[in-house]
């Protein structure tokens, strides 16, 4: 019997402006955990979605158990036995747990009446097998914690009795205990002969569950290796693609004067707890932490998006009353958002008006817009940042990720704020654009701007920061200066390999 359950042959998938997957080969054996890694935007989620039928590839073939398949919808894939636990939730808040697990597959009689009792029994059994019997199958999903919802997602995927399961960064929101029971479950699935594709970038997890690992970078496959054949450092190098020193350039700087200071800053939802940070003039400060650790939440507090629960914010030594982004921009704070398409840009609007969105009132304080002047300003930033668009009136959605990000940066550069918060500034863009953005950050700092950079790309945070704060569960748990960075060690430490050292 052929051990290979799934084979993907030279898949290519294009999106407007980028090749998300370029001629990828991939295979999965029975009872194997195959890990997919890569930086943000490397194509790992896209590959998973192609396998799941959520995307139809432009070129290439997929073979499932030796037979060629062409999934058009996720339903097609599910029927073959390929189920997934997605990063974003697919649950319905006001259906109960059992209804969610068996949604659209409810057991029912000839009249179409659902047998709730059977459904709830089956759901309870599934949850028990995940050691989650504490979850009430009759509770609305809305009432569950995020981690509990995640377990319901997993139970839902399992209820399809799949032969292949895809986990797309499933542990981001789980506690340690829940991660353990998830891994235990994955081991059981392996033993039952199910093939597992595990998308992640948490290094410390790989050795626990992985058998083979495939590294993607910029939509290309870098290689597939056995988990015991490589060191973590080699994996990092495969992911980043070059020596870190070539990518990052940070000029030596003298920092003068405190620009931004927060004092025991908390929000109202309990996701940021008494965070105190300092940002000096000309400094790039990294804020490192996992997704959900409170990094973005802290930034939103400082930028005036979310209401402050407690603590103070000082800018240039003066306490400011943080009320709204409008006010904070007046105080000289700018923010480049993590979610570019949702928060950073109006993708249906033109490049020109996106660039002018913040600074319009600065250039035209008397209410009236002069188009020629506006377009001159736009052209200036288009040239300065080398934004590749044939026409500044082109809609942003037709630009590549890198160029879109440059539009966001141009928007803030034109406002010329002293303090800039960069939340995942290089998410989903190619290496070339990344290097340009790093160069820009260095230049801004040299000009005396201060940057607070949030990132889960650890090489990036080490390469660019003068100082790093580490945030975990809403608290600032560590701080270190650049002088204390020895690149390799900190790279390893930041990537979480230190977690192994702690464990052992």
């Amino acid at each position, binding site marked *: 019997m052929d051990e290979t359950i799934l084979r993907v042959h030279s898949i290519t998938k294009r*999106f*407007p402006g980028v090749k998300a997957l370029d001629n990828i080969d991939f295979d999965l054996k029975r009872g194997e955990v195959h890990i997919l890694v890569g930086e943000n935007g490397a194509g790992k989620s896209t590959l998973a979605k192609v396998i799941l039928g959520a995307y139809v590839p432009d070129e290439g073939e997929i073979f499932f158990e030796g037979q060629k398949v062409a999934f058009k919808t996720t339903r097609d894939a599910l029927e073959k036995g390929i189920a997934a636990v997605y990063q974003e939730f697919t649950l319905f808040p006001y259906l109960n747990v059992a209804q969610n697990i068996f949604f659209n597959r409810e057991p029912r009689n000839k009249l179409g009446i659902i047998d709730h009792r059977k459904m709830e029994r089956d759901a309870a059994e599934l949850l028990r097998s995940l050691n989650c019997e504490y979850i009430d199958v009759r509770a609305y999903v809305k009432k569950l914690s995020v981690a509990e919802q995640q377990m319901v997602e997993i139970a839902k995927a399992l209820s399809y009795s799949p032969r292949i399961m895809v986990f797309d960064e499933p542990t981001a929101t789980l506690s340690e205990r829940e991660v353990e029971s998830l891994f235990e479950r994955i081991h059981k699935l392996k033993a039952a002969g199910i093939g597992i594709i595990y998308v992640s970038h948490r290094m410390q997890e790989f050795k626990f569950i992985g058998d083979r690992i495939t590294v993607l970078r910029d939509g290309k496959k870098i290689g597939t290796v056995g988990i015991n054949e490589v060191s973590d450092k080699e994996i990092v190098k495969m992911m980043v693609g070059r020596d870190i020193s070539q990518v990052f350039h940070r000029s030596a700087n003298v920092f003068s004067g405190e620009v931004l200071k927060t004092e025991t800053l908390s929000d109202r939802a309990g996701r940021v707890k008494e965070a105190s940070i300092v940002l000096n003039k000309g400094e790039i400060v990294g804020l490192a932490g996992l997704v959900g650790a409170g990094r973005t939440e802290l930034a939103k507090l400082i*930028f005036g*998006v979310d209401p402050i629960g407690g603590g103070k914010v000082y800018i240039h030594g003066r306490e400011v009353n943080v009320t*709204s*982004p*409008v006010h*904070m*921009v007046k105080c000289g704070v700018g*923010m480049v*958002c993590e979610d570019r398409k*949702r*928060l*950073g*840009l*109006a*993708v*249906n*609007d*033109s490049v020109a*008006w996106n660039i*002018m*969105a*913040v600074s*319009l*009132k600065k250039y*035209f304080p008397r*209410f*009236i*817009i002069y*188009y*020629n002047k506006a*377009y001159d300003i736009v052209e200036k930033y288009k040239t300065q940042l080398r934004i590749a668009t044939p*026409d500044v*009136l082109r809609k942003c959605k*037709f630009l590549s990720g890198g160029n879109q990000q440059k539009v966001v940066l141009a*928007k803030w550069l034109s406002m010329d704020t002293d303090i800039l918060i960069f939340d995942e500034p290089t998410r989903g863009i190619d290496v070339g654009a990344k290097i340009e953005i790093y160069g820009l950050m260095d230049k801004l700092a040299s000009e005396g701007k201060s940057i607070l950079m949030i990132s889960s790309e650890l090489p990036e945070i080490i390469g660019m920061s003068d100082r790093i704060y580490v945030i975990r569960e809403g608290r600032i748990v560590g701080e270190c200066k650049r002088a204390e960075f020895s690149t390799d060690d900190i790279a390893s430490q930041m990537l979480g390999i230190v977690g192994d050292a702690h464990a052992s």
Partner: protein
Amino acid sequence: MKKYLDSIKHSRTIYSFVGLMIMVVISSLTVNKFMTFDNVITIFRQASTLFILSAGLTATILMAEIDLSVGAASGFIGCVSAQFLKADLPVPMVFLLGMALGALVGMLNGFLVGTVKMPSFIATYGVSWVLAGLSVIVMNGAVIFGLPEGFTWFGTGYVGPIPVIVIIACIIVALVYFLLHRTTFGRDIYSFGFNPDAALYSAVPVNRTLYAAFILSGITAGIGGLLMMARLNAADATMGDAYGMQTIAAVVIGGTSLLGGEGGIVGTIIGALLLTIVVNVMNLLGISSFAQPMVVGLLILAVVMFDTYTRAMQEKLIE
């Protein structure tokens, strides 16, 4: 300026313009006396109230919100102003009060949508019910005739061959055009319409802009109501009813998207003209006035569907 022309080329207004031209050609072929000077003036005179009302509504729809209370508000303000005139208030004062009342209605809508955070189609629908009810109360079931001449001049008078009401409509449309396309406030409206979250993060005063857009549409509703009454030389509780739907029709026919951000005043004017011609032709052909709401409703559905369809096709082509 060239850039600005480009931006029109990028928009959907061009479809509306072609639609208008086709409608004009068909009408002049099928209807006798359509292209006479008198009939053209009549069309503009009939369209002028719609110009004013839909100009204000354009701002709201550009923000991906809707104001369903425009018709009822204009009727209500007309009724109240008629009572003011009956009470011998000076005409300029009546105009001011009418506009202030419109602003108040707009503020109420803004409050419900911006502060209470109700979906705008519910909030403004509710407000329109209340206003329609209030109009009935204000008129006490009666119709007011015979308004002072100093007032009706605005609706029925002429300057040379041009009706006064057309001139006023042009001035107001020009003002709204200037506000939307030439000021930072106008750009804030577009930013909000394209993506309200991104607008918040771009330091656009989102709530203030929302209020302002609803107030603008309230004020134009007020002016529209006053002129409507001046033109009819009468006021009754239901006079604004037909406009609720016609204003929306004018805006969407003009290429402004219900999804926000795309479109503008030029399109709305084309849309309002097109709609008025349709109604004019229906009148000239002697079609029952009961059928008019149906035609308007179907037009809206057809246009919005066409818009959605072409948008989807465009996305597909890009991919």
